[in-house]
């Protein structure tokens, strides 16, 4: 018999995607595998490329908001927010306080709904089949009903405007949101109890795809993925925008930077978001919801360039905006958190089993709309 070391073996190439169900969209990784172990992982992106940045150069400032809705299509408010913030920064515009509170409430609720989608999809990636998915989508549905009452659309809202928001909140918004928050608190608790300390779940996630804080910083990772590695970096705290400095909330931090930590950080973040929305509802002032700007938000920011950033559910979302003083921007560069988080995928997957690649990809929580733009 030949000893195992003397056997002539060849690494195998395995295509995962673009039609693979656990790649969360049209994403492809070429895995080089040695038996069940992953030796190399090469991500291929671009299947959902729509040329958003180029389109931004011919659409005016009001129309671009609809494009930003479609970047990270599960965190629409957070995307719109960064673009309107960039335009406001360039114009030196003071946004009415009520509008800022409305933005905070909607952005945080959107964070919860996005993390709920992560929760459901991550459960499915692990192999828990339908239960977490149903739980996640049940909570998400409640939030989307509130969004529909406010903006008229469940996902593609185009509600934020340069200088404020499109319309004031509808009647009964506060009561509706309070009731929703009570349900969400119960829902998050239920989700947490179902999965977080489940034995099988722990087996699949603890010490899988671990990455240290320094490595995470080197890869340019941000958001929950970075905080799971124990780096206390959150744009809401580091560079407060809107009225985030007025609320009392914590930034949950992980220790090992493995899949379980990334999951846990997001569950905790949902609790903190609920706390923020509660405080914002109590503090929300009356007043105008839109600063006096050009009709319909067809603004012409002065010549210059600026960079605005905000904490998306997936991390640090930034927009670099160059204006020539015209009704369309000269250049819009988008710094997408999913795209940057994806860079760490190879470092995380190499050395693990094939089944773990699915879990690691799920724990990064990428949205291809924003990776490919």
């Amino acid at each position: 018999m030949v000893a195992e070391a003397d056997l002539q073996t060849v690494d195998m190439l395995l295509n995962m995607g673009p039609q693979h169900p656990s790649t969360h969209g049209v994403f492809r990784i070429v895995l080089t595998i040695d038996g069940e172990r992953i030796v190399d992982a090469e991500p291929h992106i671009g299947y959902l490329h729509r040329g958003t940045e180029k389109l931004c150069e011919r659409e005016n400032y009001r129309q671009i908001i609809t494009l930003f809705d479609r970047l990270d299509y599960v965190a629409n408010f957070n995307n719109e927010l960064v673009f309107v913030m960039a335009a406001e920064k360039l114009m030196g515009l003071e946004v009415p306080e009520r509008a800022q509170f409305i933005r905070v409430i909607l952005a945080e609720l959107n964070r919860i709904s996005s993390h709920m989608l992560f929760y459901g999809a991550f459960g499915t990636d692990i192999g828990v089949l339908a239960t977490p998915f149903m739980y996640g989508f049940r909570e998400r549905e409640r939030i989307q009903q509130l969004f529909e009452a406010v903006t008229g659309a469940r996902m593609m809202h185009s509600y934020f405007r340069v200088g404020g928001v499109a319309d004031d909140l509808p009647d009964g918004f506060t009561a509706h949101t309070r009731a929703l928050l009570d349900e969400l608190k119960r829902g998050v608790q239920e989700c947490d109890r179902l999965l977080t300390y489940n034995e099988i779940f722990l087996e699949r996630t603890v010490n899988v795809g671990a990455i240290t804080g320094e490595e995470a910083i080197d890869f340019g990772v941000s958001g929950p993925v970075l905080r799971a590695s124990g780096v206390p970096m959150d744009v809401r705290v580091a560079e407060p925008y809107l009225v985030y400095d007025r609320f009392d909330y914590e930034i949950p931090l992980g220790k090992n930077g493995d899949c379980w930590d990334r999951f846990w950080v997001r569950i905790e973040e949902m609790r903190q978001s609920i706390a923020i929305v509660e405080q914002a509802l109590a503090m929300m002032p009356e007043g105008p919801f839109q600063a006096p700007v050009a009709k319909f938000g067809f603004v012409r920011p002065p010549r210059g360039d600026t960079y605005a950033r905000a904490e998306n559910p997936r991390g640090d979302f930034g927009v670099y905006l160059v204006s020539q003083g015209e009704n369309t921007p000269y250049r819009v560069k988008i710094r997408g958190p999913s795209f940057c988080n994806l860079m760490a995928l190879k470092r995380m997957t190499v050395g693990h089993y094939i089944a773990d690649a699915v879990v690691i990809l799920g724990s990064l929580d990428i949205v291809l709309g924003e990776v490919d733009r």
Partner: protein
Amino acid sequence: MIGFFKSLAVTLQSMLRKPVTVQYPGEHLPMSPRYLGFPGLLWDDAVDEPACTGCLVCARYCPTDCITVSMKDNPLHKEGKSKRRKIVDDFQIRMERCILCGICVEVCNFEAIAMTDYHEEADISRGDLIATKEDLFRMGRDYQKRAGIVVGAGSGSEGEE
């Protein structure tokens, strides 16, 4: 092992719960008053003519260029019945391109277009997805009646916004 039984308990619990499923084609979920359905054209009942003058502003600002409009001289204006000098001749919206963003409604100076609550306009051929003027008035006038929208009586002037 404990985890397995805990999960099973969850399954049993939800088995006894009342289902929340809405039997869709028969029943509908309530829609919010702000719901952004397909755009429809409104009718000026005071003069009995379209409120749209075919000014093209919606077509110009549409991010997906899905609107085609043309205008003609208004015969009722010559008779002195209407203040609208021009009136819409043809109006088409390509539903397969429309992203329901509501920009056309925002920019309209004559309150002539509105986002209706129509949302079940799926069809089996591309040609059927082009909403003609008749389709748009059918949706718009029906929505107008139900939502109680009255278009300014033959104003034909600049709207408030």
